[in-house]
């Protein structure tokens, strides 16, 4: 009966620990001690709890109290934000000082490397584009002098090999008319090839014409385009074109 009363009374446990640890005021302690005098259950319980507590105290006295407090290492005087944030940023002067702190040989090497980089940048920025390139020397092609390659007409931008250069012989009587005629033929060839790429029905008729397909940019070497008189004239003339497309004359 007394056990049930004690277990159901939550104040009992609180009074018990307060009494064990000596944190009970005088009035409450006197009342509790008078209860203990007539309650064997509470007395046994108090004894067992006190024994458990004495075990912990013994452990503390034997193992903990002889120990000295370890010296705590306080972090450096840097603020918390810097410690969490990582390494601070270095200034340019710090980098320069680091370079000057290197050994002499390393400094010379770094200087030479920097000079090489500067020379390379200077070469690619300031050297003009019309200077002889090393690629032409490797392939063995000799570039013609600039004064001998005066472009007269360019039929189309996608056919650089069709650039015709003017020669002295072309300024003879009748040469101008021949040049205009050839230019017109070249333009018609370009139009025909463009139309063939699009493959419209009307353009397919032009593909039947043999000389138009025979003219390809690869067959004409660029430096020797000025030798039309020596080659066989296989280009399409306007008269031939009109004779096939236009109305036939009776």
């Amino acid at each position, binding site marked *: 009966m007394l056990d049930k009363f004690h277990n159901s009374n939550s104040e009992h*446990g609180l009074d018990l620990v307060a009494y064990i640890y000596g944190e009970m005021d005088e009035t409450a302690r006197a009342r509790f001690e008078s209860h203990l005098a007539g309650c064997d259950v509470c007395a046994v319980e108090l004894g067992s*709890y006190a024994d458990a507590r004495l075990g*912990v105290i013994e*452990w503390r006295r034997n193992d903990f109290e002889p120990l000295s407090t370890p010296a*705590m290492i*306080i972090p450096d005087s840097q603020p918390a934000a810097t410690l969490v944030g990582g390494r601070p940023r270095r200034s340019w002067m710090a980098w320069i000082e680091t370079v000057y702190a290197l050994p002499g040989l390393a400094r010379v090497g770094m200087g030479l490397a920097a000079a090489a980089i500067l020379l390379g940048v200077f070469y690619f920025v300031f050297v003009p584009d019309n200077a002889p390139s090393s690629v032409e020397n490797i392939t063995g092609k000799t570039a013609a002098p600039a004064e001998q390659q005066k472009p007269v007409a360019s039929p189309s931008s996608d056919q650089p090999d069709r650039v015709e250069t003017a020669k002295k012989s072309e300024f003879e009587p009748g040469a101008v008319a021949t040049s205009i005629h050839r230019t017109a033929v070249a333009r018609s060839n370009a139009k025909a090839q463009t139309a063939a790429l699009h493959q419209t029905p009307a353009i397919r008729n032009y593909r039947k014409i043999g000389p138009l397909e025979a003219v390809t940019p690869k067959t004409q070497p660029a430096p020797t385009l000025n030798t039309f008189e020596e080659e066989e004239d296989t280009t399409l003339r306007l008269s031939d074109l009109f004779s096939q497309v236009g109305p036939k004359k009776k």
Partner: protein
Amino acid sequence: MLTELTDEQLVELAVSEDREAFGEIVRRWERKIFALCFGMLGREDDARDAAQEAFIAAYRNLANFRGEARVSSWLHRIAVNQCLTIKRRAKTRSEEFLDDDDGSEERVFIAPLQNSPARKAEEFERLKLVRSAVGSLPTDLRQVIVMKEFEEMTFQEISDTLEIPLSTVKSRVYTALKQLRMKLERVPLEIA
């Protein structure tokens, strides 16, 4: 001087990069935090590590400290978290820990002769049993019993530090003592 300031005032100074203020906080609490860590972990080396890491964590989180809580509460919470971290780490390494002792050893305590080897051996075994019993308590019960016995804090101080009601503190201590009593219960000699 710094010694006359409260913990909260010292934290304010420490936030404004006053290193001496944080040093005063460490001096005030290092023994109690070390005692707490020792009671929670049961090993001196682990307790040293936990206390050290707790103060480092406190220093690094000074800016996050809000004045709503007490400095003692804040430090205890950090220290308990460090203890739990170290305990988890130790379990992961499968080291022998005080929890690993299942208490299946013999629990008979014979009245020894004073200062005899048998007496010392029995003391050693009893302390081992107490460490095991305390270590097997749940964390909240172990914390209050360690704060009570190792830090020698009053119930009211524990209540203020943990920010829980006074009756809860007493109830936890009562439950902890009840469980310790069961674990340390003597086995009658005639049965053994």
